[in-house]
């Protein structure tokens, strides 16, 4: 089988070198290739039988090898970025919760270790695309910074409604931690007494009553995995994957990050904005005000983000 490993790898390289995706972020490129395989599965099975491809090897094995190769490449390419993202976070606010029991350096180490495991999960990995885009574009610093300075509705929701009295920089770090842990919601595990089979958030998205039980059990279990991270933080991180309709008023950080994650998932960096066009963020928030219900966004937060983007030409 090892003789095919090299051919699979070269086939994946060939697909990734396609001009349509070669400049994309590895996570998006991986998704595009997986979508391609899933859409054309039957035709690919036929093609793979030819000597040009993988004659004599079952197609299912080849699909598995391709997925494995893609995952390895994506992780190799994205992990260093995530690790530098972790290194850029000041964990003092977490350390302070435990009155210095855990040092900020400790958090850097356990988060690096945890993310290495988390990123193996395809859905969790996919979510890191928006998180990395948010970090790279300094979106949290910009929006939280200006909102806290102005005491705009976003500030009101994050600080007053959520009752989280962190300073601006601490809040930004808190939100970055939520972004890191957000993908945990997709890890499948048995959660007795709720379920004896392996489940994740997808199984409970449409049932409000069971969802609450799931969140409670899940966050408590996670808190044991990462000593020094409270169950409340895990709870909020998992909620970042849910639309506003599934959340309580005090889950302001989750509502905010749900919007930001969607904004930066297919983030397009417009090199040059056409004259007469609105700025990218303002355009996006403005369009989403109309689609808020459809996507489950908090309209009040969207309005505020739209104003902040417009006033600052973002």
């Amino acid at each position, binding site marked *: 089988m090892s003789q095919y490993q090299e*051919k699979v790898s*070269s*086939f994946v390289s*060939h*697909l990734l070198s*396609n001009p*349509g*995706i070669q400049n*994309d972020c590895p996570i*998006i490129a991986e*998704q*595009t*290739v997986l*979508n*391609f395989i899933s*859409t*054309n599965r039957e*035709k*690919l099975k036929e*093609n793979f039988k030819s000597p*040009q*491809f993988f004659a004599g090897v079952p197609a299912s094995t080849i699909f598995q090898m391709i997925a494995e190769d893609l995952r390895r490449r994506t992780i190799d390419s994205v992990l260093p970025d995530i690790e530098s993202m972790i290194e850029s976070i000041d964990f003092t606010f977490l350390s302070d919760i435990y009155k210095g029991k855990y040092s900020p350096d400790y958090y850097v180490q356990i988060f690096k270790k945890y993310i290495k495991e988390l990123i193996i999960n395809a859905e969790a990995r996919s979510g890191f695309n928006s998180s990395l885009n948010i970090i790279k574009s300094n979106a949290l610093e910009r929006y939280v910074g200006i909102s806290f300075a102005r005491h705009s509705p976003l500030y009101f929701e994050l600080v007053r409604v959520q009752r989280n009295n962190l300073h601006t920089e601490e809040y930004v770090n808190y939100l970055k931690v939520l972004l890191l842990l957000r993908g945990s919601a997709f890890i499948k595990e048995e959660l007795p007494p709720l379920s004896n089979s392996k489940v994740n958030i997808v199984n409970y998205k449409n049932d409000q009553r069971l969802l609450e039980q799931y969140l409670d059990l899940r966050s408590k279990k996670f808190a044991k995995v990462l000593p020094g991270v409270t169950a409340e933080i895990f709870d909020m991180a998992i909620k970042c994957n849910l639309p506003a309709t599934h959340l309580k008023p005090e889950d302001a950080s989750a509502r905010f990050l749900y919007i930001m994650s969607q904004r930066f998932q*297919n983030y*397009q960096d*417009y090199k040059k*904005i*056409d*004259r*007469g*066009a*609105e*700025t*990218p963020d*303002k*355009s*996006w928030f*403005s*369009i*989403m005000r*109309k*689609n808020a219900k*459809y996507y489950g966004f908090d309209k009040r937060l969207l309005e505020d983000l739209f104003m902040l983007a417009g006033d600052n030409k973002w």
Partner: protein
Amino acid sequence: MRKYKLLENFIFLCIILVLVQTFLEDFSVVRSWSVDKRNILIISGFVFDLIFSIEFVVRSIANGVNRKFTDYFVNRRGWVDFLSSFPLLILNSGPSLLVFLAGVNTVSLTGFGIVNALKVVKAIRVTRILRLIRIIKIFGKIHNTESAMAQHHTSVITTISVFSIILTLIMFSVLFVNPYSQIMNDKAEHYKKIADTILETDQDTILTVKENARLHFKNQKDLLRVVYNEEDLIPYNEELASEYHNFEDILVVKHKNFEFHFSLLGIHAKTAFQQLQNFFIIIVLVLAFSFVYTRHFAQSISDVMHIVNKGLRKKEYNLQVKIDERYEDHAVYRIARFYNEAYLPAKIKKVNTKKELSLKDMMNFKG
């Protein structure tokens, strides 16, 4: 293609240079430049007119071969190329060069009518400025308004305005006598009267006609030479006359036994100043249209349409149009508002922006 580009750049350079030449031709008269320098301008004017005439012929033939001559002449402003080439070559710079080459250095009073006719023709000289319209595209690039629509509208409105001004100037020169020509005639009449007076009073004074004439004419600044019975009463200051006066600048008036050579430089300077004013009015108008109007047009129409068009065609382009509230009831902005508030939200919901690979992309795998 590269040769064509080189040729276009050469023509653009000629347009710029011909405008400078047109300006200098009048400026040199206003500032009393020497004849040598002004002769260079006459030659250069002829060369430019020749170049543009050749260009017009070449373009006409090239378009004619493809049966597109009418389209070139009517729609692509071939008529501007024509008006700013052949009429100038035949009626203005050509005759000027011929007279210069023939070495004619004065114009007689009988020839003064022809000069006046040439003055009418000279008004056509302003049509050179029409060439400026052809470089509006360059202004567009400088001003980042590369929209073909904006450039087309600016060209149309500029052509109409500039052509209207030029037509009015030509009509004025045809229908009305130039006030400065009238001054010239009055001056000639004035000297004739003085001559008559001298001849009439000759009998009663102890001064001879020659002495009397010298007394009357020696302080006339524009009088270069006075001849009586083929004898110089006031001789030429050769140096002054030939350095600053060409054939157009000296008028010879014959009356009885007198011959007056007087300078038209002062009158020509006034006419040239007026032409400079016209020149700058048109230049400023073209610049104003190119910079102010094109910008306004781009901002309120073509930019808006460009963004809407891009958003309709490219699935990943989702930028909204900036609505200018001053014009929000205009049809263009009403379309833009619909695009912003209805089309884009629906597009984002319905259009799958994910990139896709095709089986064709896979098949060229070499293994």
